[in-house]
């Protein structure tokens, strides 16, 4: 875990946050993938001990500060994503990108489900089926995103 790894993680997370927050027309906003979550997941898989769960948790808290109906909601969900990434990183890393996309889809559905459940419990229910769309689009752009992110930092092993 070098300083450059942490630097790359921080830089890409910042860009992902900007992509998450930048205003878009409504239909584009609906299909917008969860860039920050995908970035956290990528680094959890590729550098499980540089970023990890704490990084995911703080990234989620940042999302809460901007978008959360309840503080701590995204923090929990993104920490779960990071945990799954770290726990399964050896199994996910060795798979081809398309198979990785399937795994990513499952993880993103879990992520959306945590948000859905917390929304419901905390009294801010949002039951439209559109809320599951980012899971699908996120899985779709995963190969491209992984390609871009892999250029930002490559471990010397």
């Amino acid at each position: 875990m070098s300083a450059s790894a942490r630097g790359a993680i921080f830089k890409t997370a910042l860009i992902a946050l900007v992509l998450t927050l930048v205003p878009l027309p409504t239909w584009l906003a609906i299909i917008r993938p969860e860039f920050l979550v995908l970035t956290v997941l990528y680094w959890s898989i590729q550098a499980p001990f540089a970023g990890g769960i704490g990084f995911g948790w703080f990234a989620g808290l940042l999302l809460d500060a901007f978008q959360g109906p309840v503080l701590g909601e995204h923090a929990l969900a993104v920490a779960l994503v990071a945990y799954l990434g770290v726990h399964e990183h050896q199994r996910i890393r060795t798979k081809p990108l398309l198979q990785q996309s399937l795994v990513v889809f499952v993880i993103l559905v879990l992520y959306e489900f945590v948000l859905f459940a917390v929304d419901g419990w905390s009294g801010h229910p949002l039951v439209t089926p559109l809320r599951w769309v980012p899971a699908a689009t996120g899985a779709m752009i995963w190969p491209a995103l992984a390609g871009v992110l892999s250029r930002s930092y490559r471990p010397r092993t």
Partner: protein
Amino acid sequence: MAAFGTRSGSPRNRGGAAGFRFALYALLSVLIMVLDQRLDWLERVRFALQAVTYPIEVVLNSPVTGWHWLEREFASRHALEAENQRLRERLHELEMRTLRVDALAAQNAALIGLKNALPPVAERWLPAQIVNIELGGLRQRVLVDRGERNGVFRNQAVLDDYGVVGQTMHVGPWSAQVLLITDPDQDLPVQVERTGLRTIAVGTGDPTALALPYLPANANIRVGDVLVTSGLGGVFPSGYPVGRVTDVHPDAAQPLARVVAAPFAHLQTDREVMLLWFRHSSPAAPLKERAGELTSGNPSIQPLPAPKRSRAAARPPSRARAAPPQPSRKSSARAPAKARSAPAPSGPRKP
């Protein structure tokens, strides 16, 4: 392929540590959520977070601001003249309408027995620019560039030129989040202008639709009815336009009708909204719901003592006049006086 950055320990050990760390963070998240839900003191944390996030939001919004600035700077003379003309016409139209409104207000005041027309409910206005930022895709929220420094408070009414926009939610030092009326979290007490029927408009998450889910299937409501705020709920003064009913599905098999309305406010295209401070003494000011007392509204309207159940008071005076003997004339003289003292607008009236 070894994970880089591995210092020591087998992957299995690491996995266990990851599970433990996740459990710790999950617990922390749940704690924060519970505190945020149950207690108010995280509102101060929210306030600080708004202060931290606002600069980022302003930076992210700067391309939009820049574009609007360019549009304004390089607008052609012709376009400006056309806009000027349009605005002048609009001003005339509104002035004409205001004249009529003043006359009606005076007439109304005379009708309900007040000497002068009451002051308008809006005391102060503050225009606020909308900061374009993503506040959760499907939730209907916007950020405005006014905060506590400008005197903005929580649950303040926000309007635009066409109708009710929403209310402030989290207020930061320089910014405030506004919950639009179309957000699923927003329940807005409304009144049908034509019939006075009161109900609640609930946001649907769709910026062009409000639902009225609590109307019975036989409710007197039609397509085209105008909804105005009812003044209940303590946030919005009464009488501000909310929307127009666009769809009514009275299904006899269902206990409730399915009614949809379109908001008047231009929620998707607004660049500027108005924050409203209302006068508490105006009768149109929102009522605070506190049991048993009127904390706002017209102070001359007070609860009346329950009418005595005497025969003379209960019967109309014509009947009392018909009764000839002396002792009952005394009571008949008292009865109209009592009846005259009674008819305050909100007094409990028995047929």
